[in-house]
């Protein structure tokens, strides 16, 4: 039985039946996702399922052809990425996109430039001591793990309301993945809202509250990680996960 309160309650982020094209190819078909305040949602699926495109659509890097995206109930689809970022959405892209010619601290400084509630460098450095050691190093000299820390730190220093993590553990050594998973878990425990796209399902499920499964641009599954365990066929057939 739905109460009136349930119907009117707004999710922090609401992706409502979006269709997104990448060039000429139709990538997302009526994709709908809801993320509540303080929730961590994992997007799972095979390569090319549309996970990255979903994140890029939310960030405004790609504009959906139809459908709507709402943040606090206000439509944001079609706004440029800079405007969406200033509403508190922050993409940490798959390729990390660290500015190689800027130092670690300059990368943080430029991220904080337009954030009204920017964190102090000290707060970031307390969380990532390694970045403090390397704060004068150019971005291009960082290791993959350090680049990923910096990419996440750039989202945190902006005090983003919702962080979109695209394959944060990809191509990193197991030890570094373990450290980053700890960081992600702590953020989740502090109530930081996140959407995570990850091939490493075990790592993603270790801090995600809820899961959406994508296949060929369609949402084929929605539920908790326990629900996913109860559906091994679905996990195997649509998401490419050996559960």
């Amino acid at each position, binding site marked *: 039985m739905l109460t009136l309160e349930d119907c009117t309650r707004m999710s922090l982020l609401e992706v409502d039946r979006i269709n997104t094209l990448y060039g000429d190819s139709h990538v997302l078909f009526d994709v709908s996702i809801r993320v509540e305040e303080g929730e961590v949602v994992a997007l799972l699926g095979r390569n090319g399922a549309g996970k990255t495109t979903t994140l890029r659509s939310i960030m405004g890097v790609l504009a959906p052809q139809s459908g709507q995206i709402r943040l606090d109930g206000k439509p944001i689809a079609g706004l440029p*990425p800079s405007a969406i970022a200033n509403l508190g959405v922050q993409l940490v*892209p798959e390729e990390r996109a660290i500015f190689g010619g800027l130092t670690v601290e300059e990368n943080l*400084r*430029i991220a904080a*430039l*337009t954030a009204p509630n920017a964190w102090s460098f000290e707060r970031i450095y307390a969380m990532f001591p390694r970045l403090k050691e390397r704060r004068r190093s150019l971005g291009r000299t960082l290791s993959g793990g350090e680049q990923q820390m910096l990419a996440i730190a750039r989202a945190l220093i902006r005090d983003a309301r919702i962080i979109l993590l695209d394959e944060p553990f990809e191509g990193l050594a197991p030890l570094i993945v373990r450290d980053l998973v700890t960081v992600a878990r702590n953020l989740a425990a502090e109530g930081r809202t996140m959407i995570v796209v990850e091939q490493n399902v075990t790592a993603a499920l270790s801090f995600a509250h809820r899961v959406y499964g994508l296949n060929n641009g369609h949402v084929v599954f929605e539920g908790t990680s326990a629900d996913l365990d109860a559906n091994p066929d679905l996990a195997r057939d649509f998401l490419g996960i050996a559960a």
Partner: protein
Amino acid sequence: MPSWPALISQAFNGLALGSLLALVSSGLTIILGTLGVLNFAHGALFAVGAYAAFVMLQYTHSFVLTVVVGCGFMLALGVLLERTIIRLFYNRPHEDQILVTYGIGIVLVECVRAIFGGNAQRVPTPSWGQGATQLGFLIYPTYRLQLIAIVAMLLLSLYLVLYRTSMGLVVRAGIENPGMVGILGINLRRTFLLVFAIGVVAVGLAGMLYAPVVAVTPDMGANFMAQSFVVIVLGGLGSFPGAVIGGLIAGEIISLTSAFNSSYSEVMLYALMALLLVLRPQGLFGSEGRV
């Protein structure tokens, strides 16, 4: 084989020419790197700067005042061009951008020709730069020495703007990855106007400072622009240090080659560019990727 004093004198000429090329190319390269627009009106703006000096000197009789007023004029011209024309072309193909800036260049040069005629004008050397200076081993025109020092200071100020201010931070990041700058909440379009205006002031200043050394004609910028294209390819597209080092290298190559045979000086410059493109296609300070 030319004599040693002649060679050293040419090396100084190369430094003077090279520093000017560095200033012209810095403007060209930051506009290209940030806005993604190759500004074919750059040579015309160099000539406009020189004519601005020619006109202002007749009113002010002070070279310093001329340069200050001239910079204000170039700034206004840069803002006007960006607001009315250039900004309409950011989302258009590169061919359109080249055509429109080339067109702006033709209009500017022909306006200059219509007002001042095609004959060469002379801009006198400032009173504090007359005569020659005894350097011990060499007697060298004073103004050219001052020119090198002035341009060095201008390049240093440009360096400070690019590497010590928030705007410079945005410009450098924008040259590398404009998409990510947007994702971090910065509207790069607002920076475009400033960068374009700074580039126009830089090339106009180069024209003003060079005016006392050469004959001022409407087409004086054409050669300079072609050479500065080579400079930014040498230095790496969008790289400020590349434009400075590339400018100095180009200046020295042109000047030193002409000490032997002046008809080969440009040939040597293009030969060096061809060689570098084979060995290091991204240029001396360039990174692979963008542009």
